[in-house]
């Protein structure tokens, strides 16, 4: 039985003349907490973006559960729809919807994508915010949040649609040491039979302490 939730095979991606990924291959086992390490500009973020269907790639193949992305043109819309039920993304700069409150940021996708009743979506959103210890900020606008609060809201927003694979880009970049520890413990709690986490970071101690597996991205390729 295949336990990998994510498989990359020989993925090539370039921006203009610059080769960013030159044959990236790896598997991420289900329920793992996997970290991709690498220097700035090594292509960590690009790998995550390609998996989320935000970047077309020239060669290779990406599979998330049973959804496959082919090289070449951007994937067709129905493929993307399937993909995005599988993958959640927490961006380095959070990218919360500036015009909506914290609660509405979290509820928006459950209501409009998953067609959940508003009351159910709100109740679940509050539970998530509570787990992430930002429930007291439910009525605030994103610009009123601290960096750590915004990150936890972004996590809640991604988790609200319950994706099997949650990806996080540089999650510790804007956190003080205490928050960093808190985040590690939280991510460990979130991992389980139905949730795999893949994160990019250049914070080696964090990766070593919390990740079940650490990969290195160098010169466009991955090594363990």
């Amino acid at each position, binding site marked *: 039985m295949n336990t990998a939730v994510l498989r990359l095979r020989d993925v090539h991606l370039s921006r203009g003349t610059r080769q960013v990924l030159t044959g990236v291959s790896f598997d991420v086992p289900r329920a793992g907490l996997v970290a991709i390490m690498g220097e700035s500009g090594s292509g960590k973020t690009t790998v995550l973006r390609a998996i989320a269907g935000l970047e077309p790639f020239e060669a290779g193949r990406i599979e998330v559960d049973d959804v496959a992305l082919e090289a070449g043109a951007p994937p067709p819309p129905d493929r993307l729809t399937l993909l995005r039920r599988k993958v959640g993304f927490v961006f380095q700069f959070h990218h919360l919807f500036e015009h909506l409150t914290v609660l509405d940021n979290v509820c928006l996708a459950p209501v409009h994508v998953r067609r959940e009743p508003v009351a159910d979506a709100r109740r679940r959103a509050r539970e998530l915010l509570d787990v992430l210890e930002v429930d007291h900020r439910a009525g*605030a606008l994103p610009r009123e949040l601290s960096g750590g609060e915004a990150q936890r809201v972004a996590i809640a927003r991604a988790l609200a649609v319950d994706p099997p694979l949650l990806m996080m880009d540089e999650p510790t970049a804007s956190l003080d040491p205490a928050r960093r520890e808190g985040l590690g413990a939280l991510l460990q709690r979130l991992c389980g039979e139905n949730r795999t986490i893949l994160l990019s970071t250049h914070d080696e101690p964090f990766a070593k302490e919390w990740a079940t597996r650490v990969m290195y991205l160098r010169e466009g390729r991955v090594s363990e």
Partner: protein
Amino acid sequence: MGYKLPIINYPFLASAIVLVLLQTPTLSQPVQPPPAPLRWAGDPEGGAPFVEADPRDPSKLVGFDVEIADLIARGLDRTPSFVFVTFTSIDQSVDRGDADIGLSGIEDTLTRRAVMAPTIPYYRFREVLSVRDTDAPRLRSLADLAGRKVATLGGTIAYEILLRGERDYGLVAVSYDDDVHPYTDLVLGRVDAVLLDHVLAERRQRAMPGFTIQPDAVAIGHYVGILAAGQAPLRDRVNEILKRGMRDGSLERIFRKWDVWNDDQRPPYEQVLGGETVPPVTALQGASDIERLGVWDTTKRYLPLLLRASVVTLVLSCAAMTLAVALGVVIASGRVYGARITRAILIGYVELMRGTPILLQLFVIYYGLAAAVRLPAFLAALLGLALNYAAYESEIYRGALEAIPTGQLEAARTLGFSERQVLRLVRGPQAFRLALAPMTNDFVAMLKDSSLVSVLTVMELTKQTQVFATNLGSWVIPGLLCAGIYLAMSLPLAALARRLEAKWKAPTR
């Protein structure tokens, strides 16, 4: 070969030059400084037989008013110098001293006699009704025109007569800015009759078939020269020159040359030469005569008209803005999301609408398209304003859409939203907040730009103010009222926009 230097006696040369220099002033001493030219104001757009550019040499002016200006200038021992002034502004222009006298088929009115210094009348005209040939047997007088549209030039005696006709006969007065389009619109069927001077009607009939001039005049009026109130002494000298022209037949020769002489001219000439005063206007149809009301009575009469015109301005602006916003959103979406060809077409549209004058666009929509689609004036005005403003709105929305960070759009996509949902739920609402301030700005601009549609005969606030001012002979009260009404419309709008902005910017807890 010998070469001989010319012998020059330098001391002699120097004294000769000095002598010449000294002589020069004494030579010119008896010559008076040239007389100041007689600056006369007119509008060549009025055309022949009044004032028009010579078809053979457009830099020269011809017309009976040009020749009367020459006659007056000669009598004053001055040279005529033409000053171009828009017809409706000749009074104000003469009053502020841009010209000494206005001559352009200017009507004698009680108002002009009260606030300016008009000359004695030099030409008597008849206000005549023109109707389509097929209507000629039925529509013979103002009384036959109940419920029908009657066109004329705004701010004239004819317009005053039509305003009275609205009350007395229930006709609908339509004001134009020129004397050509009333007749083209008559033939097209946009109006049912035109009331104007017989000089204008007959001239237009020679150029354009399809309408009949009814033989019975509606009123009698006169053309005069117009001077500033403080120029009464000059006016009196001009009057003497005109009287001489009546006596020695030079005025008759001028009018005969332009083919507008008739026997109507003799009675007023005899009255003037006999020392009598000729009444400015004599109404021949209708009970109410043209009288001059006081400032207060005129204001009381025009205030309801101003309010009605401000409703037109407000409704027109709101409707045009709504349409412009809707179209602007479509254009902006097409420019942000559309295919290359769609984008190119939309850029072409935006640049065309921004790059050409809105006045030209209004003319094209109303008059240019008349052969294919005969749009009613209000609808044409609405469309013209909306199509023009849509171009500006679309640029605001495009800018606002593009200002929303890509990161938020990608975040929405990774959550599973379709592109349409991203626009509706994430990008659109934020762009709208960004666009709100420039949009309000445009709405306030629209309120004022809507005054341009008076060229399409829509009687909005500015045009009505102009008519009021012409009737009153002063801009002070009409101007203040007009400004007050515009502010009363725009200030609440600005306040509303500020509240909306504040509401969406404020943190909600």
